[in-house]
């Protein structure tokens, strides 16, 4: 078809052009293509513009990334601590410490008695020696313990309550009963510190929300300020485009795309930083999990969280650009 057109005389060519123009202007498919062209073109040209000022653009992207890394990594930290504590919570158990002067045999008898208790699923004696051994191998206090010439540990009966025992009052009642036994020195519910930790984590989680909001505002300002400088640089272009009949939408579009790029690149970089941060922590956290005898492994940003991070970042970029450009256009109209 294009070859054929070249062969036509100029006069004829003008005619075909006229027909084509009409079709281009009226055909919905062509209009759609022109519209898509425009968007793809703007997407590309706004990225090219970012690359034209690599230092300034990278600085903006980096600042956005850092601003997003802080709440994201804080969130991940809490998430991981929560998950780690929940794997421990599964080993919900009561430790009954016998009075130090009582022997392993007394402990053994007590364990046998307790096994018959209706609310107890299992009761097992941990002898003074076994306790010391365990402490030596897992806790890292090995050397200090070796320096002792006697075993300071009491015998312990480790009790696992029945799974049906879920309500706190019932647990409390069982604990009171165990405390009242003449052999008992003290009783410790191993999940107690977990509850304290959980309420601490809830507080921390709330602060993540506050951080996120504040730093999101930060991102909005960073993008807004960058776009504002860009608007100043392109003042003449905007003025000319307006004289040529550009709508506000047309003028706004490349800046919204610039905002999109800043947000997208900033969000992606934040994701990379957070992931690198986690990789850095993976080794030590694995060792920590081993110490607790927990199967826990560090969890990274999930798909939803990644989408949320980048989505939020992109939205903030676009919104920041929108606010600044709209404000600028209003000012331009006023003069």
């Amino acid at each position, binding site marked *: 078809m294009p070859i054929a057109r070249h062969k036509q005389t100029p006069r004829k060519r003008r005619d075909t*052009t006229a027909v*084509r*123009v009409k079709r*281009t202007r009226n055909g919905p498919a*062509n*209009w759609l*293509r*022109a*519209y898509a*062209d*425009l968007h793809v*073109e703007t997407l590309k040209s706004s990225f090219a513009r970012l690359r034209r000022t690599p230092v300034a653009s990278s600085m903006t992207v980096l600042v956005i990334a850092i601003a997003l890394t802080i709440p994201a990594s804080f969130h991940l930290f809490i998430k991981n601590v929560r998950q780690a504590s929940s794997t421990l919570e599964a080993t919900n158990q009561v430790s009954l410490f016998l009075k130090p002067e009582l022997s392993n045999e007394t402990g053994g008898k007590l364990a046998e008695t307790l096994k018959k208790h209706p609310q107890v699923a299992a009761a097992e004696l941990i002898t003074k020696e076994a306790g010391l051994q365990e402490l030596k191998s897992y806790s890292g206090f090995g050397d200090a313990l070796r320096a002792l010439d006697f075993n300071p540990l009491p015998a312990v009966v480790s009790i696992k309550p029945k799974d049906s025992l879920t309500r706190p009052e019932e647990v409390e009642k069982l604990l009171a009963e165990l405390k009242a036994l003449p052999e008992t020195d003290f009783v410790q519910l191993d999940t107690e510190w977990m509850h304290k930790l959980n309420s601490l984590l809830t507080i921390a989680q709330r602060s993540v929300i506050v951080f996120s909001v504040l730093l999101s505002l930060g991102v909005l300002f960073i993008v807004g300020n960058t776009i504002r400088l860009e608007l100043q640089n392109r003042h*003449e*272009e905007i*003025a*000319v*485009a*307006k*004289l*040529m*009949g*550009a*709508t506000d939408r*047309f003028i706004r579009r490349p800046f919204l795309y610039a905002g999109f790029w800043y947000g997208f690149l900033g969000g992606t970089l934040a994701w990379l930083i957070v992931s690198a941060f986690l990789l850095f922590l993976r080794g030590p956290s694995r060792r920590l999990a081993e110490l607790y005898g927990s199967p826990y492994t560090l969890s990274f940003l999930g798909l939803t969280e990644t989408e949320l991070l980048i989505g939020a970042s992109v939205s903030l970029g676009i919104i920041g650009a929108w606010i600044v450009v709209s404000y600028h256009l209003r000012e331009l*109209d006023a003069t």
Partner: protein
Amino acid sequence: MLQFINVSKRYSDSGEVLSNVSFRLEQGEMAFLTGHSGAGKSTMLKLIPLIERPTRGQVVFDGRPINHLPKRQVPHLRRKLGLIFQDYRLLHDRTVFDNVALPLQIAGYGQQETARRVRAALDKVGLLRKEKRYPLALSGGEQQRVGIARAIVHKPSLILADEPTGNLDPDLSAEIMALFREFNQVGVTLLIASHNLDLISRFACRTLKLHQGQLVEGD
């Protein structure tokens, strides 16, 4: 095509710049607008694309009064006009091609259509070979021809030129004017503001003369 009915424009700081101006410009006409600097030529031209709105009176374009045209319709009005400026107002970070393509991009033409029309416009002003250059690499006369190509590329119904030869030497000025006349001969309507009476006198065109904000000749 274009009609001014008792149009006045007053600025709060410089008083009345146009008083009671009335005239008609017919389809296919080419007219000059003359007068000393400060006579109100630029102001008059600004009232047509609604860069300014008149204080009193009515401006009618294409059979429609435009004084109270809502802001969101102003872009569509401007797309029917071709504006040419004394200082060209080209975008220096874009090639000649991209400068001329601007009105088409604004109007939402596809890439192929844009390319064809831009080349046609550049061909008309004799700059087809320089489409990849940047404006600052061109001479003043060439830059103004790029400005003209940009003003005609979207086939506007009226071309407004504000001192288009103000920065050019006499030879180049004559060239530009000849170009305008060529356009007029194929039916383009033009209104050209210029204080270069010597140049104007060479064309047998209607001349509107402004003096202290009043139309004293050619209405």
